[in-house]
């Protein structure tokens, strides 16, 4: 095997591309395609969130807020103001980036549980505003969203969306892998180790943290906007605290500081509730138990635990 294929960057990207290309063979009907699209959209959010939590070591319990703003921003601009969908998506994402930058500077000076609380508070505020501004957002009942039109063609149907989301997922993975291996990415990991030590060697820690916070918010808002166009309907539930927790759980389950882990985490935790739906009333119990057991027995997450086990020549 050529050496380049064994690195996470080339080999992993190739493996993911093959999975995306071959998966349709196993997707029997539109329902499976639907789940696959949702996995891809969640994976994009998780890749961004993993840059923040896994690499920079900064927790956020409010990313569903950015997801929701991206979704509602795109939906409102398209449905209420008649903007073209792509322009709405771009504007909503840019708006979220600006918001994340404005609140990021003061908030990211906080550490640990204080940062967790601050981001959580931010998410709660966004969710409440969304469900109360019913003139614009349709309130708790949600609002319907026109389809995403690309160059005059409406993008509809699970199959078409599958390929678009698949390509965007690859793009997101590529961006994240490049960032992590750039000097900026090394600075982030240095922050994770020790902020004080990172500052001693000349890293502007607040600037780096704000940058990755904005980037992760952009990933979330973009995927949020796409989710709105894809499903054609959104509710404020997508912006609330429980959804933020779901996103963090996906990242941690897949494995912190592992971009492919984020993808796997999104895949497992998006599919699991679908599988558990047959259990009906027991769904929550099993879901909670799975979360606890994974963290107790695989505290590093799924992908890092597996790679540590099967990595050639690396023993612990």
């Amino acid at each position, binding site marked *: 095997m050529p050496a380049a294929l064994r690195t996470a960057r080339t080999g992993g990207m190739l493996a993911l591309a093959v999975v995306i290309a071959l998966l349709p063979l196993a997707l029997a009907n539109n329902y499976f395609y639907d789940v696959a699209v949702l996995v891809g959209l969640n994976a994009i959010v998780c890749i961004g969130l993993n840059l923040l939590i896994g690499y920079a070591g900064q927790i956020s319990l409010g990313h569903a807020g950015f997801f929701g703003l991206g979704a509602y921003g795109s939906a409102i601009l398209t449905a209420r103001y008649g903007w073209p969908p792509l322009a709405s998506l771009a504007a909503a994402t840019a708006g979220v980036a600006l918001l994340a930058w404005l609140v990021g500077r003061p908030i990211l000076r906080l550490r640990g549980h204080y940062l967790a609380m601050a981001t959580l508070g931010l998410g709660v505020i966004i969710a409440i505003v969304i469900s109360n501004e019913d003139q614009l957002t349709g309130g708790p009942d949600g609002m319907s969203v026109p389809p995403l039109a690309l160059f005059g063609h409406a993008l509809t149907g699970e199959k078409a969306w599958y390929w678009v989301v698949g390509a965007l997922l690859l793009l997101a993975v590529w961006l994240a892998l490049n960032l992590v291996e750039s000097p900026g990415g090394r600075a982030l990991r240095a922050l994770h180790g020790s902020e*004080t030590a990172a500052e001693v060697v000349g890293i502007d820690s607040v600037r780096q943290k704000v940058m990755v916070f904005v980037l992760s918010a952009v990933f979330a808002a973009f995927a949020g906007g796409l989710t709105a166009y894809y499903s054609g309907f959104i509710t404020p539930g997508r912006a609330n605290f429980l959804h933020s927790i779901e996103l963090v759980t996906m990242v941690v389950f897949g494995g912190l500081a592992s971009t492919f882990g984020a993808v796997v985490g999104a895949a497992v935790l998006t599919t699991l509730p679908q599988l558990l739906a047959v259990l009906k009333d027991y769904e929550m119990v099993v879901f909670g138990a799975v979360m606890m057991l994974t*963290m107790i027995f695989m505290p590093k997450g799924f992908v890092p635990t597996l790679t540590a086990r099967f990595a050639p020549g690396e023993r612990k």
Partner: protein
Amino acid sequence: MSPQLLQYLLSGLTVGAIYALVALGFSIIYNASNVINFAQGEFVMIGGMTTVSLIAAGLPLALAALLAIAATTLVGLALEKLAVERVRSESVVTLIIITIGASILLRGLASLVWDKNLHALPAFSGERPIALGGATIVPQSLWVVGVTLVVVAALWWFFNRTLHGKAMLATSHNRLAAQLVGISVRRVLLVSFGLSAALGALAGILIAPITFTAWDVGVMLGLKGFAAAVLGGLGSGPGAVIGGLALGLLEALSAGYVSSAYKDVIAFGIMLAVLVLMPGGLLGRRSVERV
């Protein structure tokens, strides 16, 4: 003072006292283990729901409440023994996910054991409102505030005057040093979960006659309790009480004077502002990172 303002203050104090009890639960566990227990709100729910069931089974209120607190304490001890104690990882995020998993599990179990309906508990001593300087207060509010005062005093006595309490405080200051002087840190951890669960259950029983209880009331109460604990300064007992009361008053005043739909936005917004200005909360310890 206008009767209207007095009315808002009274209702703010009532809710704030509940937040204070929940926040104390967060702080006690945080002190013993550096864990934020996201299942704290579920303790509140289990306390309230168990009492409702026991009263329906014909037990008198006081006995039902005591049994409910005992049952919730057992749940707290089990959570520590079966999950938290087994975690090898020191990572804060891992521990957060485990307690979130526990909260989902407990909510799921509650929806199975009970149902998904709202339940009411009879008020402890009647529903007839008491007039007070132009405002009115339900007797249950007096119970909430009174019991909270007693609990705060008892906790102060426990942590400052008893050997067990001092051992827990010592562990929160320096785990290794506490272990060196012969304190069983594991037991401290276990006791902290039991104590927090009992406090949560008590809060759930006190508030159930005013706000009803249901399988999912723990989510919002847990969030508010966490917010109160952080506002006051994590790990500080007086901070938790002040944070809880402040949050309750903020909510009541913004609901009264601004908008009840936006009361949480205002409360969380002010909390964010306080955190930005005082990154360790109102009474938090200054933490120093060692390199």
